């Protein structure tokens, strides 16, 4: 089957800055992807280029093998049959919920409009709120109406521009999971733009991490976390620290925790000095371990402690310990390295344990 969306080498400049550089991606029908990145990385620009609000300087955008954008050609947004759920929802305040939902259905007959509106209202479980005005609804309900309005015309692609950023952080994942269920039910092809990795993990089948106008890695959530391809992705996703190591052979690393066996990126030569990515969950606390480290900082997280430890070499690492293991700052505790994926990068100046979001 042909991909629903294909972006080929799209570049564009805004304010004389390269905002997108050679961005390429493909999306299968029904796939939910997430573009994840810090603010200013170009993710919103990419979304606006897909919607047709932003002309591209080079490259092409195809939907269903139909050309949507290329240099000096931009199909008007209103002709793209793409829907978008906006950060501020952008519900029309002077229209009722039903009128909002029917706004994109003007090509249908009256009765078809009514039927479709009823169907999506049912989907978002707001069957009885059709005649209300947006301001009469709670923010969660408004959120669902915005989704329903975007879904009503059965778009080729649904774009979601940080739609959950106004929600309570506790609520975000829950809402994202609910939205995912609805999107899957409707078999919608969707792209979610966000800077919140939990939101991306909860929603997406595939995740693209963006930085500096480029897609750094396009992969599953699992691989993005466990097999980051670039130092940026490793740093941006999850917590972690870099441990100096030396490549001994194609399968062996030498670290201060001893030798580690596993699959190594073959592009590194034997004897090369590298940094090994160590996630806090790779370093379980073990009182019986001969290797100890001093507690430098600690943060209580309810079910567990996040410790920042200083190793004997002077390097710092992060480690999770069950919250029963309450150690004082300055106290030595035993740890072991239990690492499954050996992710290594060319050696750089020492990286402090990331406090990335």
């Amino acid at each position, binding site marked *: 089957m042909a991909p629903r969306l294909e972006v080929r080498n799209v570049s564009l400049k*805004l304010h004389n800055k390269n905002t997108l550089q050679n961005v390429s991606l493909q999306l299968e029908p029904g796939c939910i992807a997430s573009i994840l990145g810090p603010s200013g990385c170009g993710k*919103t*620009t990419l979304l*606006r280029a897909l*919607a047709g*609000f*932003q*002309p591209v300087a080079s490259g092409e955008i195809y939907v269903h093998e139909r050309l949507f954008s290329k240099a000096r050609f931009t199909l*008007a*947004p*209103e*002709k*793209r049959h*793409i*829907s*978008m759920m*906006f*950060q*501020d929802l*952008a519900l*029309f*305040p*002077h229209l009722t919920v039903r009128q909002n939902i029917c*706004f*994109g259905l*003007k*090509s249908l007959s009256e009765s078809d409009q009514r039927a479709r509106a009823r169907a999506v209202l049912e989907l978002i479980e707001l069957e009885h709120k059709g005649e209300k005005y947006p301001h009469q609804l709670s923010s969660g309900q408004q959120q669902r109406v915005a989704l329903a*309005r975007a879904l009503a*015309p059965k778009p080729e692609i649904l774009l979601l*521009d940080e739609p959950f950023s106004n929600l309570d952080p506790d609520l975000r994942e829950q809402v994202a999971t609910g939205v995912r269920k609805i999107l899957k039910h409707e078999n919608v092809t969707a792209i979610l733009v966000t800077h919140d990795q939990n939101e991306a993990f909860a929603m997406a089948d595939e995740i693209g991490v963006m930085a500096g106008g480029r897609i750094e890695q396009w992969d599953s959530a699992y691989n993005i976390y466990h097999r980051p391809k670039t130092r940026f992705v490793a740093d941006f996703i999850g917590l972690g620290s870099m441990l100096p190591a030396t490549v001994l052979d194609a399968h062996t690393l030498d670290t201060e925790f001893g030798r580690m066996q596993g699959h190594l990126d073959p592009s590194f030569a034997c004897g090369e000095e590298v940094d090994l990515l160590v996630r806090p969950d790779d370093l379980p606390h073990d009182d019986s371990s001969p290797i100890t480290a001093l507690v430098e900082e600690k943060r209580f997280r309810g079910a567990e402690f996040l410790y920042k430890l200083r190793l004997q070499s002077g390097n710092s690492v992060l480690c999770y310990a069950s919250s029963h293991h309450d150690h004082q700052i300055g106290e030595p505790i035993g740890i072991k390295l239990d690492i499954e994926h050996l992710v290594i990068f060319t050696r750089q100046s020492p990286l402090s344990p990331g406090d990335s979001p």
Partner: protein
Amino acid sequence: MGTRNEALVPLGFSQRFRQQKSNLGWLFFAVCTALLLSIPVVTVLYSVTLPTSDIWAHLRSTVLADYALNSLVLAVGVCLGTSLIGITTAWLCSAYSFPGRKLFSWTLLLPLAFPPYIIAYTYTGMLDFAGPVQTSLRTIFDWEYGDYWFPEIRSIVGATIMISLVLYPYVYLLLRTAFSEQSSSLREASHMFGVGSYKTLFTIILPMARPALVAGLTLVVMETLADYGTVHYFGVPTFTTGILRTWFGLGDRVAATQLASLLLLCVFAVILAERYSRKAVRYQNPAKVQKGWRYPLSGTKAIAAIVICSLPVLLGFVVPALQLGAWTLRTAPEIIDYSFLTLIINTVQLAVIVTLIIITASAVLAYGKRVGTHFSIPYTVNLSSMGYAVPGVIIAVGVLLPFAWLDNTLDAWLQQNLGISSGLILTGTLISLAFAHVVRFMAIGLNSVDASLAKIHRSIDDAAQLLGRKTFERFASIHLPMIRGGILTAALLVFVEVTKELPATLVLRPFDFNTLAVRTYELASDERLADASSSALLIVAISVLPILILNRSIIQSGVVHGAQT
């Protein structure tokens, strides 16, 4: 006015990333509108290049210095007067609580409803020899004519007081808004350092509100320089009276236009000065505005505050309104007849035509500005709203000269080629009159519509577009219903301004076409002040409406602002 609605809406990505092709048809309309509306100002400025006539030598040696000096004295005097009243009342109503404060906070705006010429007529009628004040004095003290001294209101001092009494609300309103946007924690901090109330006002509060004060005084100066009715009636020769005297009295249109260009340069100088002062000073309020606490006054202090706040309301609105009412009761049976009805119909007809044109053009221009990105857009919009700074007399002169030329050229061509006469198509009809008003008041419509549109977040446009609506469909189905309130307010403001406008109507009205304002002027000029009261009172009554709405919308925006911060 400086309400900061833009601060309420977070700067979305849409604004930053907007890049769309401009619609060429719209661009054409915008440029044409801007060029058309700039005709009067361009004409007046162009007149400088024309050769000067002998009349200039005459003007220079006789009256020009008087015009300049009187205009200057009047402008400075009115600035002082409006500052005194405006600062005091705004400060009292913002910083203190006393009985009646809420009532004063909006009644202090009411004098705006009086056009300067109407309050001038009213006070003249009250204070002249046969008026109620002097008559009572004579009765009480048993004086005869010549026994006592009484100040002459028909003087430059009188004009200054009259104009100050009705223009101080500009200063009051802008300062009140500025004070309310200042954090009360600043005031408290100042008090904590042991600085007293008055010193705090002059060292902290007022310097911080300087941009608002300067903006208010700029409006005051512009209105003062534009005034014709008051100074003409009081016999104070200024630029505006001089322009019309040179035009009609001396019959020299070019010299009159050149005189107008002098006045126009003064107005531009004032505007530039205001811009400069705004650029030079950028005070920043603390991000978080601490609101609300007012120092309670009691006893003699509270009474003093009440007296200070009630004086401008009484003198600027209640007393003259009562006087007009009394006169109207006496003279209405004779005055209110068929011809009075014609006056109302004429006035409404003119106001409705002008309002419709302005609102339509404003909607097109403002929405075009929203969807287009052509580099010329800010210029076209600015050029279109320039007329508001230009006194009505100047616009009248600037309209009459080119329109008369067009009329004559057309007529001559038709007579020569077709043997028929077109007469005066433009200058003799409502067209030139309506056009002048559109030029003068376009800015009101444009600013209101623009401000309402600015409150609509750009993502609304994007959403409607993605849901399949083209540019015009979006305007009709989304923007128009959403800015209905703003458009109605704009329409009301324009309607009222057209009703009040005197000099442009006076100069450009078609033969036998009278409006309420012109009739008031004519009757007053004939010393039939009591007879002028019916039309004057009607103008004031109509003018009160937008003040009430204006006040309400400012209070509301204040509430929203407070809730957001």
